[in-house]
């Protein structure tokens, strides 16, 4: 059995992911299930001279709110949440669900109403994050609920996270620094190239990257664990088909066997073996939902299995993922949508990525590195 790895994880989060400076106001946003990591982060932030603040959430309170609140109460915006989002220098969010399906029976209009009421907080988050005045990171702490969703026992799941975070490496901070450098080299090679073709079992897709599109190095600063490089394809340039090898779990709903056909950047045909109605309803949510907002390559070889948690699944070494909907400004994307739905596809069985006619990636490895 592995020891309590929260102090080790907290060290990487405060030293490497978001280096804490003296005087930083650091908000730790987490449910009570993450207690060991909340404590360890709190201690690590104090040690680096920051001011840690945490009001751990009780998940049952949200369930009670959703069940019992009047419309007026659903529309209420907690002023404390707003103040924290305006004032914090650093925000750590820890994923540690007590029940991954607790929202499955909630009438969609009630959850939408609740979400809408929180919009000012989210807008402040996006604005301050874009300006650079708010640094943030999303990480995970093992719970029985997440383990059950991954079809694992808690011990097996804890080991899975431990390895995914590279805490099994002799010096995890050095490991993540090396990840950042390696991905920098890949991105330097990709810089200025324009035409991408993705081929292999289940995928035959092409798109363009001109018009100021860049590749972004996801090195463990905003997500932890991490390991991907991504870009935003030119919105009307995507053509071809993909039959995703992995399912997705979104809003407590599993959709699997998703097939998409793109024509000039829009999904013109979509089907799923399970959850097709939900897929189609999401695609018709708004004008931008049928456009590809992101194309990414997962690079974390410490993650080798699907768990149903996107934070991990999209990083699986040897996979690519694509997100429908909202694109990311940082990479030059211009698509707008309420959704940003990541779907993962395995490339290990002969998948290839060609860039401007050169073979860049094959069977889950970067050919350019060989």
């Amino acid at each position, binding site marked *: 059995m592995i020891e309590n790895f929260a102090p080790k994880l907290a060290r990487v989060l405060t030293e490497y992911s978001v280096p804490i400076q003296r005087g930083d106001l650091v908000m730790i946003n987490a449910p009570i299930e993450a207690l060991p990591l909340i404590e360890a982060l709190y201690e690590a932030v104090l040690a680096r001279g920051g001011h840690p603040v945490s009001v751990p959430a009780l998940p049952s309170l949200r369930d009670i709110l959703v069940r019992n609140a009047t419309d007026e109460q659903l529309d209420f915006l907690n002023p404390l949440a707003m103040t924290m989002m305006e004032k914090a220098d650093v925000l750590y969010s820890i994923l540690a669900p007590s029940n991954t399906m607790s929202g*499955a029976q909630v009438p969609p209009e009630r959850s939408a109403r609740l979400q809408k009421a929180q919009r000012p907080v989210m807008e402040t988050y996006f604005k301050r994050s874009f300006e650079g005045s708010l640094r943030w990171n999303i990480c995970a702490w093992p719970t029985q609920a997440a383990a*059950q969703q991954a079809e694992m026992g808690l011990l097996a799941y804890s080991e899975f996270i431990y390895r995914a975070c590279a805490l099994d490496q002799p010096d995890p901070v050095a490991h993540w620094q090396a990840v950042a450098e390696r991905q920098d080299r890949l991105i330097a090679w990709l810089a200025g190239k324009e035409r991408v073709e993705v081929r292999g079992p289940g995928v035959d897709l092409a798109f363009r990257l001109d018009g100021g599109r860049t590749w972004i190095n996801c090195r463990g600063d905003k997500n932890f664990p991490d390991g991907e490089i991504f870009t935003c394809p030119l919105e009307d340039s995507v053509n071809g088909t993909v039959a995703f090898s992995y399912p997705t779990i979104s809003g407590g709903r599993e959709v699997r066997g998703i097939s998409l056909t793109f024509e000039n950047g829009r999904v013109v045909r979509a089907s799923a073996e399970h959850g097709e109605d939900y897929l189609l309803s999401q695609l018709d949510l708004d004008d931008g939902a049928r456009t590809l907002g992101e194309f990414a390559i997962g690079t974390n070889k410490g993650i080798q299995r699907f768990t149903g948690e996107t934070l991990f699944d999209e990083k699986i070494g040897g996979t690519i993922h694509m997100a429908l909907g909202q694109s990311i400004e940082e990479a030059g994307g211009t698509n707008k949508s309420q959704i940003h739905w990541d779907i993962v596809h395995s490339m290990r069985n002969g998948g290839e990525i060609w860039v401007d006619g050169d073979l860049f990636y094959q069977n889950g490895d970067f050919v350019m590195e060989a």
Partner: protein
Amino acid sequence: MHESFARDLARILTDYSSPVKPGERVTIAGNIETAGPLLEALVEAVLARGGFPNVQAAAMISPDYTPYYELFLREASDEQLDHLDSTIMHWVNESDALFFVKAPANTKALSSVDPARVARYRRTIQPFGETYLSRYAERTLRWTVCAWPTQALAQTAEMSLLDYRDFLYAAYGLDQPDPVAYWEGFREMQDRLVEWLKGKSHVEVRGPGIDLSFEYDGRPWINCDGQLNFPDGEIFTSPVEDSVNGTVAFNYPSVYQGYEVEGVRLRFENGRAVEASAAKNEALLLSQLDVDEGGRTLGEFAIGTNKGVTRYTRNTLLDEKIGGTIHMALGRSYAESHGKNQSAIHWDMVHGMQDGGEIWVEGELFYRAGGFMVK
């Protein structure tokens, strides 16, 4: 919210399901971390009735009852896996009544453990199961399995814990003005049904997705009234092994060893499932049917009668009791209903009859659309 869920449930369990008498030794097995309130309420109720409560708060008999099952199965040597803990055998031999409180912290806890190790330890503790079943058959021991709401069960049912609590509360009949009187009335209602069925033989089941016939040839129907399982609500029999003919396309999924199998279709010819298919996890279905000679024979035919169980929750203890459904089990049959089929499997599959399903017995309409047509 419920003010006294655990106390009310403990009262029915010790008063109705397994009435505890002064001087009885009563073992309560359940995971202290997830079933705490009910364990405490059972101790209180057993004390109040003059019994001697013995709590086994982490018994290594299934992941439902201990937080350490995954740890043990991962780390134990073969020698340790083969070791039968004598204290388990002590209380199964010495108790007058057992309460098993199922409150899993993770319904997939064993999915990541080597199946060979799981099977090896199950063989080790087989004497435990054999002892309580044989002592029950000799009438020297009573046992009752019940459930306590956990996040894991709620997640499996795709519900929040609050909604799941309400669901179980109603399944237990705790929303009735006098739950014990409600269950006593329930017992009498099922006694009358079983009495009516006595001595008859020919059954035809018809309706959406089903067209099946079998004989039970005087074999008894058993009244499942909450003594062994709680919540409860079914009557069942064992069809004559070679008499089953027809088809069924089950409209509920079924969960087997933690895997969901959907859209199961079976065709029986002279008692054997000669055709079988499934829309999801068909390979698991077929491998289990061929696990041994008895895997393709129907071991049980049952009617679920609990109107408080209103939805499917991926938990066989509850799903097979849904009022308005029938279920059939492939594999091993029960001796109490004079079944003769032997198999390593007993796989319950549930079919909804609410949309016009009918059961005819000796040419008389016995059941239609979820309701009984006889007095």
